[in-house]
């Protein structure tokens, strides 16, 4: 009897501790997001006080302020938030699916595919509203290539990552080729796009890709159980009634959709999807459904913050946000690879 009471007490204690940490992390993330959002609405060529900017956001106050905030700053900020959330969630799903801390859409070539699709549409002179579809198509194409080249090995992780790098390089080359062949004015906008930027996003794009992103994020939450069951290995997962190949394919497609929609909004931003799951794991422990939510929030914070750095802290005009994340990303990737190939980390397959 008393043993049962003790076990209940220890249970609640350790669980409350984890839950408190998750809530604290989530709350800090949301506050940061709000602060960054306010910053991005208030700063720029025309600095505005926070109150004025927030009122302008809902259409109150000086019509010039309303125009600046509603039409220029808000869509850019929202695009960064939505794309960041998608990248964070995509990285989370992929790293868990492949049980590999290096798995992420940029490393696996999905981002490269999305760029190719988008640039191809820009080259064809398609309307901006169609660019997300191009990115999605390109991302799926890259995933298909990845599958064709890596499927034979039963999706073994090393082969997948290496194949991903090859696919990424090939697609990047194709994008460069297209840019060189473009008329100058289109080449400029394509080049800007391929570096990863939320500059000049309009509400049309944000609503289209953002709405789809919300649906995809919802699907990711719903499919989290499958991810957890897959963690048990194929035999146990199969015995629990999960069709493992189908589930893996669904989750892979979902991650591709998340990453491609993010690419449609912000271009091929690197590093965010790779780093965010590690940050979340470092702060809250092994992956749960809460980590997926936190990864979304962290990705949004990271991308919005990077965009603010690009806009205001760097002396170079018009630098794309992808440049900041890539600069952070390269050394991070190196550290991860070194850690992964060290014998200590090797133990877990």
């Amino acid at each position, binding site marked *: 009897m008393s043993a049962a009471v003790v076990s209940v007490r220890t249970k609640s204690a350790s669980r409350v501790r984890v839950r408190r940490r998750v809530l604290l992390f989530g709350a800090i993330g949301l506050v940061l997001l709000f602060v960054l959002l306010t910053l991005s609405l208030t700063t720029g060529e025309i600095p505005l006080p926070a109150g004025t900017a927030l009122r302008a956001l809902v259409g109150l106050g000086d019509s010039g302020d309303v125009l600046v905030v509603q039409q220029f700053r808000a869509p850019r900020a929202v695009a960064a938030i939505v794309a960041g959330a998608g990248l964070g969630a995509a990285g989370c799903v992929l790293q868990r699916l492949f049980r590999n801390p290096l798995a992420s859409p940029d490393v696996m070539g999905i981002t490269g595919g999305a760029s190719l699709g988008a640039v191809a549409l820009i080259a064809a002179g398609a309307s901006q509203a169609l660019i997300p579809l191009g990115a999605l198509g390109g991302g799926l194409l890259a995933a298909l290539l990845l599958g064709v080249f890596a499927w034979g090995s039963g999706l073994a992780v090393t082969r997948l990552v290496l194949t991903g790098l090859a696919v990424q390089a090939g697609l990047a080359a194709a994008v460069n080729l297209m840019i060189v062949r473009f008329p100058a004015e289109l080449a400029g906008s394509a080049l800007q796009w391929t570096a990863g930027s939320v500059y000049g996003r309009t509400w049309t794009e944000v609503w289209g890709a953002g709405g789809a992103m919300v649906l995809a994020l919802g699907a990711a939450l*719903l499919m989290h159980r499958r991810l957890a069951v897959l963690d048990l290995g*194929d*035999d146990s997962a199969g015995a629990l*009634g999960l069709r493992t190949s189908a589930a893996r394919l669904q989750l892979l497609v979902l991650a591709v959709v998340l990453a491609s929609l993010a690419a449609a909004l912000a271009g091929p931003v690197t590093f965010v999807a790779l780093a965010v799951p590690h940050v979340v794991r470092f702060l809250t422990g092994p992956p749960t459904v809460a980590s997926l939510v936190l990864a979304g929030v962290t990705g949004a914070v990271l991308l919005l913050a990077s965009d603010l750095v690009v806009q205001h802290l760097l002396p170079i005009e018009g630098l794309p946000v992808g440049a900041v994340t890539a600069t952070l990303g390269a050394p991070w990737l190196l550290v991860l690879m070194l850690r992964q190939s060290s014998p200590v980390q090797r133990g877990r397959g």
Partner: protein
Amino acid sequence: MPATPNQLSTEGLDLRYGDRTIVGGLDLTLPGGAVTAIVGPNACGKSTLLRGLSRLLAPASGTVMLDGADIHRMSARALALRMGLLPQQPVTPEAVTVEALVRLGRYPHQRLLSPWSAADQKAVDEALERTGTASLRDQPVDQLSGGQRQRAWIALALAQDTELLLLDEPTTFLDLRHQLDVLDLVAALHAEAGRTVVMVLHDLGQAARYADHMVVLKDGRLAAAGAPADVLDAELVKSVFDVDCRVIPDPETGTPLVVPKAGAVRRSAATA
């Protein structure tokens, strides 16, 4: 023939990995409501048979039937509601707690949008209680001892709440105390909860003690099947395991006990 429910049977079952036939032409009936032990030398196809019986491996030809219905025509989920499986070396997710692991056993009972229900929690609590892992529920599984970890995995299979339970060498890597612990737990599941159990075992004496029915495989073919007392004799052990032995009644239970002859091990030591 009419039979107790939860009877697994195979007809002309061929199981292959690539071109290699592991189990060939197997006609088998595993009685419902009983404990069946599958025994045989290493690499005789015991584990492969278990994977075939649980739909994890599609037969190259032949069928596996559960109460007369082809399990490959059932949905994965429908089968998972009737049959649980503990693989030989299950993959423990990193840092997962005992309760989080056991909760995954409820997967086939949940729909996409269904929240965690009181019935789910009850099944998990009962599984933890029955396997004696309730006090470990918040411990990470990868930090438990081998015996505790095995019980946590059995708890997962119990939370799945199936009438049929397949266990692949549940006692491997455990010391004697924990082997008996697991086997007693299995016996209790059968006796108290009426579950049908099919398990792959290495130890013939343990198989004879704990099983009502015994299936002996050699090179992927059926060597013998029946009640341990009818099946297990010196001739069978010689022909299947290539070991000269005497089979005597177990002084504790009266079930057959295999006692290798002195010196008979020298030749078979290499394969043991």
